[in-house]
């Protein structure tokens, strides 16, 4: 069992998200996260679904999703040649003592400070899972007020010559 990312492209019509999530809950597939939005094609929606499973389960997911009438494409992301990214926002309580240390940590991770107040600041960070996990571990020593994660979005790399 490991995490897989599944790419789904479907018609952008009302109710289409509930059809996908309904299928996953009905079949007992374990969703770790869904990201979705419009795609390069007009009228089509693109989703990256992160699921836990083994090869057999992932095959089933692929076939069952493909059966949905509004779905035009389903692909399992190939681990080796896939770019995965997630965006997170973290609000951390700060004072004049901790502020500079925190900014330093954010800098190392190429995070951006996007809001700052007397009491707290918000860091925006984009990266793959390892980077985000690493960052979240490091900031544990501070007082984290809020974390918001988008979930993973993914894309296959271009073909190498």
């Amino acid at each position, binding site marked *: 069992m490991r995490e897989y990312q599944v790419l789904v492209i479907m*018609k952008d019509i*009302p*109710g289409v998200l*509930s*059809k996908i999530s*309904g*299928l996953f809950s*009905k079949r007992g597939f374990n969703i770790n996260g869904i990201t979705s939005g419009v795609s390069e094609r007009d009228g089509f929606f693109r989703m990256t679904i992160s699921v836990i499973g083994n090869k*057999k389960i992932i*095959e*089933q997911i692929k*076939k*069952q999703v*493909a*059966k*949905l*009438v*509004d*779905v*035009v494409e389903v692909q399992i992301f190939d681990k080796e040649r896939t770019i995965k990214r997630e965006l997170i926002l973290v609000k951390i309580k700060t004072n004049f003592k901790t502020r500079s240390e925190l900014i330093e940590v954010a800098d190392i991770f190429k995070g951006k400070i996007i809001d700052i107040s007397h009491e707290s600041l918000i860091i925006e960070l984009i990266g793959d899972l390892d980077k985000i996990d690493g960052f979240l571990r490091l900031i544990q020593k501070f007082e984290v007020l809020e974390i918001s994660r988008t979930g993973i979005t993914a894309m296959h790399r271009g073909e190498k010559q």
Partner: protein
Amino acid sequence: MKNINGARIILEILYRHDLNTVFGYPGGAVIPLYDALYDYKDKIRHIFTRHEQGATHAADGYARISKKTGVSIATSGPGATNTVTGIMTAHMDSTPLLVITGQVPSTSLGSDAFQESDITGISLPITKHSYLVRTIEDLPRILKEAIYLTNIGRPGPVLVDIPKNIQLQEISYEKFEQLYQAENNPTSTYQHLYDSPETRSIELMVDMIKKSERPIILSGNGIVKSKAQETLKKVIRKFDIPMTSTLLGLGTLPHHDIHNLHMLGMHGTPYANYAVDEADLVIALGMRFDDRVTGDVQKFCKNAKIIHIDIDEAEINKIKEVDLHIVGDLNCILKKLLKSPHEKQHPKWMDRISELKNKFPLSREFSTDEISPQHLISKISQITKGEAIICTDVGQHQMWTAQYYEFNRPNSIATSGGAGTMGFGLPAAIGAKLANPDREVVAIVGDGGFQMNSQELMTISQYNLDIKIIIVNNSFLGMVRQWQEMFHDRRYSFVDLEINPDFTALGKAYRIDSYRAENIDLLDDLLKKAFEVEKPILIDCVVTREENIFPMIPSGKSVHEMILSKEDR
């Protein structure tokens, strides 16, 4: 230029697709549709059932026998939710069904308006697809698409929810024709399923059959759905392969055909189950390795290579890993298989099959003091020569029907297989009769299930449908009672129906000739007379109360743990 409203568009499109029989129940949100029906009386026959569940099961029964899409109509809110069990039943057994529901006006959607229910949401997991119509311009395309989807690829139910204001809204005829003619197939493609299969797959299959000494065919509902029964018969002769059926696949071969091993599975024939266990090649055709068929999946046909052919790719390797699979329409694939220059005989294996059949027949020793349910079904089978259309609910009576009704014709069974829906048989018989008025239709129902949709007696009576209604009355919820007896120390908990109503009085209340059979002589006489007249007859058959259904492979067990009879326990 004349205008056409949404309601008329619905009926016009049904009519143009030859869907000229619909089952329904009026209500507030479909008043415009019923108003239009008033003018379509000559083109569309509307059967007024007495419950929306009845309408949906009747449409299901109609579809199973006619192979056309069944259509049911219900109003919004409770009308729509009453169709849910019917939709689920059709979904589990892949019946092509179009469910049209009225909805509150689109301007009121989401406001908890009177009789509003989110039926597309509610029915989401049990439909092949569903639509909520948002504009009148969408309506022609959606209806065309919906009808197409019900019966293409793996058939299934499609729901179209149509707000009342859209039924009332008008567009010009010209505009309607333009919208109707527009190319607008759904995104999913199905055509490849009907193309001739790859030659390579067929060669591999023939090769496996040639190498096999003990092949067996497992024939399921897919054979029925793709109308492949005749082709399959030829395949069986050409390669000399015995065949066993799932519940929904019964009837492909005449009962006494030497290749016919009848039903397999939990309550299947011992010879079918033993043969599957001994086989070295299992050819699974349009069946999905349901747990009632396989028991312990690991041990199921563990000595065999498996070929699986199904139109639904998701069924391949879902339950059982297979050695070869072909995805597509069975009739196309089997036709191509027939073209193979090779043939094969399996005389030794067929001898073994006969031996198994002779050694482990279904019991024929029935009690003579009381009516045994097995005698009852055998008698119906004799009188109708195994040629009737049989509709059942779920439970003991269903399994006795599968065992003792000697099906001699294809397309002869309408029973709730996957869903196991009580109350299915009676309304399904209404649909079956209307789909095929020339054939004898028998609703064989339990005394429990009968009470779940007995209001449909009124429909049968109103349309004077020649349906013979046989209540297998043991005054128990028999199957649950049997499990309580066998697995819960006879702690009978809420299965006793001793205080049943007087079914003959009930039948008479609906103006149906109704009789009660309490002994064998009376039963035989009543049955004989019932099939001599062309009108509905109800017979309440009082059968042995605590009869069990054997053989039985207990849930999750294998063929080696099959219980053959009461004495065998």
